[in-house]
C-alpha cells in the first residue's frame, strides 16, 4: 500500500463520505427534527437521479438538471407532507406504513416512466476526465463532489446556526409544543423543513447520479446507507450527520481495502460499535425525560 494508493484511498474516503453527507443531511433534518420515519427518503434520491437524467437529455445543462430535479422533488414532498404526513405526526408505526406505501408508489412510477434497464448520468463537460495528484490519478468529478459537499455543509451549518429559521428548527427538535406555543406557525415550518430535506436528497441524487447510476433498487440501498449515517452521527444534529458520513466514508473505503471479506458488513459493524458505546449516536442527545 504505497503512498499513491494511500492518497487515492484518502480522497476516495472523503468523496464517498461527503456523498453520504449529501444524502444524510436531508434525512437527519426530517428524521431527527420531526421524528418522522421516512422510508420514502430513498425514493426522493432516486427521483432526483431520474428527473435530472430526463432534464439533461432535453436541455443538456447540468445546472438546470440539478435545480429542476431538486425543486420538482421538493414540491412532490410538500404535497406528500401536507396531505398525508401532517395527519399522523405522533404515530410512529403509521409513518412506517405510509412512507413504505409511498416508496412502493414512487418505485413503480419510475419503472413505468423509465423502464427497468439501468442507465448512467453523463458528467458535466468541464468535470470530465481525471487529474493526477502527487502521481495518483483521481477523477475530477469526485473532487467536485468533495467541494460541493463541503460547501453544502457550510451553507447548512450557517442556516441552522445563524438564521432565524435555524433556531426554530433546533427549538422544534427539542419541544414542538413549546415552539408552537410561541405563536410560530410550526406546521408551515415542518412543511418547509420536509421540503428542504427532500430538496437535499434530490441534490444528493443529481450529484451522486454519475457515480451510482440510475437503476431500480437504488432507493432501498440509499435509504439504508442514509439511515446508518444519521443514526451513527446522532439524530437531529447536522454536525452528527457530517461526522457520521465521514466516519463511514473512511470505514467503508479502508475496510474494503484491508478486510475485503467483511466488505458487506463494515457499515453495520461500525453502526453496532457506535450504538453500543453511545446508544444515542455520537452527538445524539440523550432521550428526553
Amino acid at each position: 500500500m504505497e503512498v499513491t494508493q494511500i492518497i487515492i484511498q484518502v480522497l476516495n474516503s472523503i468523496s464517498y463520505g461527503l456523498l453520504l453527507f449529501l444524502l444524510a443531511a436531508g434525512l437527519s433534518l426530517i428524521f431527527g427534527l420531526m421524528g418522522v420515519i421516512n422510508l420514502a427518503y430513498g425514493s426522493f434520491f432516486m427521483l432526483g437521479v431520474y428527473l435530472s437524467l430526463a432534464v439533461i437529455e432535453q436541455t443538456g445543462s447540468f445546472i438546470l438538471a440539478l435545480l429542476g430535479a431538486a425543486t420538482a422533488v421538493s414540491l412532490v414532498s410538500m404535497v406528500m407532507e401536507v396531505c398525508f404526513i401532517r395527519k399522523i405526526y405522533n404515530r410512529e408505526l403509521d409513518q412506517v406504513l405510509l412512507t413504505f406505501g409511498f416508496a412502493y408508489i414512487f418505485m413503480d412510477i419510475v419503472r413505468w416512466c423509465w423502464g427497468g434497464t439501468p442507465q448512467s448520468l453523463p458528467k458535466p463537460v468541464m468535470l470530465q476526465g481525471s487529474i493526477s495528484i502527487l502521481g495518483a490519478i483521481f477523477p475530477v468529478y469526485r473532487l467536485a463532489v468533495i467541494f460541493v459537499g463541503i460547501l453544502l455543509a457550510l451553507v447548512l451549518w450557517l442556516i441552522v446556526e445563524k438564521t432565524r429559521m435555524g433556531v426554530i428548527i433546533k427549538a422544534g427538535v427539542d419541544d414542538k409544543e413549546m415552539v408552537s406555543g410561541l405563536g410560530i406557525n410550526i406546521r408551515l415550518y415542518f412543511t418547509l423543513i420536509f421540503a428542504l430535506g427532500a430538496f437535499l436528497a434530490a441534490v444528493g441524487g443529481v450529484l451522486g447520479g454519475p457515480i451510482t447510476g440510475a437503476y431500480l433498487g437504488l432507493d432501498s440501498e440509499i435509504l439504508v446507507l442514509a439511515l446508518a449515517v444519521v443514526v451513527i452521527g446522532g439524530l437531529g444534529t447536522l454536525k452528527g450527520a457530517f461526522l457520521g458520513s465521514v466516519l463511514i466514508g473512511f470505514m467503508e473505503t479502508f475496510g474494503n481495502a484491508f478486510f475485503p471479506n467483511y466488505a458487506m458488513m463494515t457499515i453495520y459493524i461500525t453502526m453496532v460499535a457506535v450504538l453500543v458505546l453511545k446508544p444515542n449516536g455520537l452527538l445524539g442527545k440523550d432521550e428526553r425525560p
Partner: protein
Amino acid sequence: MFLGVTLLIALIILPFGLGSYGLSLMISVLIFGLFAMSLDILIGYTGLVSFNHATFFGVGAYVVAILFYRGWDNFWLALPAAVAASVLLATVLGLVVLRSSGPYFLMITLAFGQMIFALAWKWRTFTGGDDGLPGIPRPDLGFPVSMWNEQNFYYLVLVFICLSFLLLRQLFRLPLGRAIIGVKESESRMQALGYNTWLLKYLAYVIAAGFAGLAGVLYVYYNGFISPQELNWTMSGMAILMVVIGGTGTLVGPVLGAGIILILQNLLSAYTERWPLVIGMLFVICVIHVKDGIAGYVMKLWEKGWKGYESPGSEKPN
C-alpha cells in the same frame, strides 16, 4: 369469542373449497401469519419496533436446512433445535439491542439483521452462500400421514398457528403478560411500581424470536429451500407492514395482514404490471382511514359496547 370460533371453522373447511394453487397460497399466508403474529408480541404488546425479526425467522429455517445437509432430518429433533437456536440468538442479541430505544432501537436491530444476512451470504461452506440451501424434503412426522400432500401440510401449519395463538393469548392473561403490556403503556410507571422493565422487554424479545423461529421452520419445510433473501431487512419490513395493516396488539390482526399482503402480491401481479402502485396506494389509504388496522376496525365494529372506545394510537396525551 364467537368471532374466533367461526374463523377457526372457516380455516378448517377451507382446503376443501380451494384449488391446489389457492391452498398453497393459504399455507404461505398461515406461515407468514405466524411470523407476523410473533412480531406483534413486540410491536403490539411490548411497544418495540424491531427491524431484524426476519433474522430469527431465517435462523430457524437455516438450522433445519443445515441439519438436513448433515444428515439429521428427524422432524421432532430439528424443530426444537431450530427454535432453540433462534431463542439462543435472541438471548445474545437482546443484551445489546435493548440498550437503545426508539429510532435507535429500530436501527441497531436493522444493523444486526444485515450483519447476519451478510454472514449467511458469505459463509458458503455452511449456509450455501447466496444460492442458499435448496432441496429440503417435507418432514416425516413418524406416523403414516405424508406431508407431501398439500392438505396434510396445511393442517400441520394450522395446528401450529392455533397452538401458538392459544399459547400467546394465555401468556397475555398471566401476570407476566399483563406486565409486558404495562411496559408498552408506560415504562416509567411500571418502574415506579417495581417492575424490572428491561427484563420484561428482554423476555418479550426472546419469546417473539422463538415463535419467529418456529415460523421459519415451517417455511423451509414448505418451500424446500432457504436463501439469504429471507434474512434481509425488506423481509422484516414486510412483517411490520403485515402487523400494522392487520392491527397491532390483536394477535389475529397480523394473520389477516399477512393474508391481505400475500394475496395482493400474488393475485394483483397476475393482472396488472402496476401492482406495486396499487399496493402502495392501499397502504396510504389504510393509514389515513383505517386507524388501527383491519382487525382493530373489525373489533371496534363488533364490540360497539366498549364505552367510547377510541383508537389507542392517537389518544395518548403526551
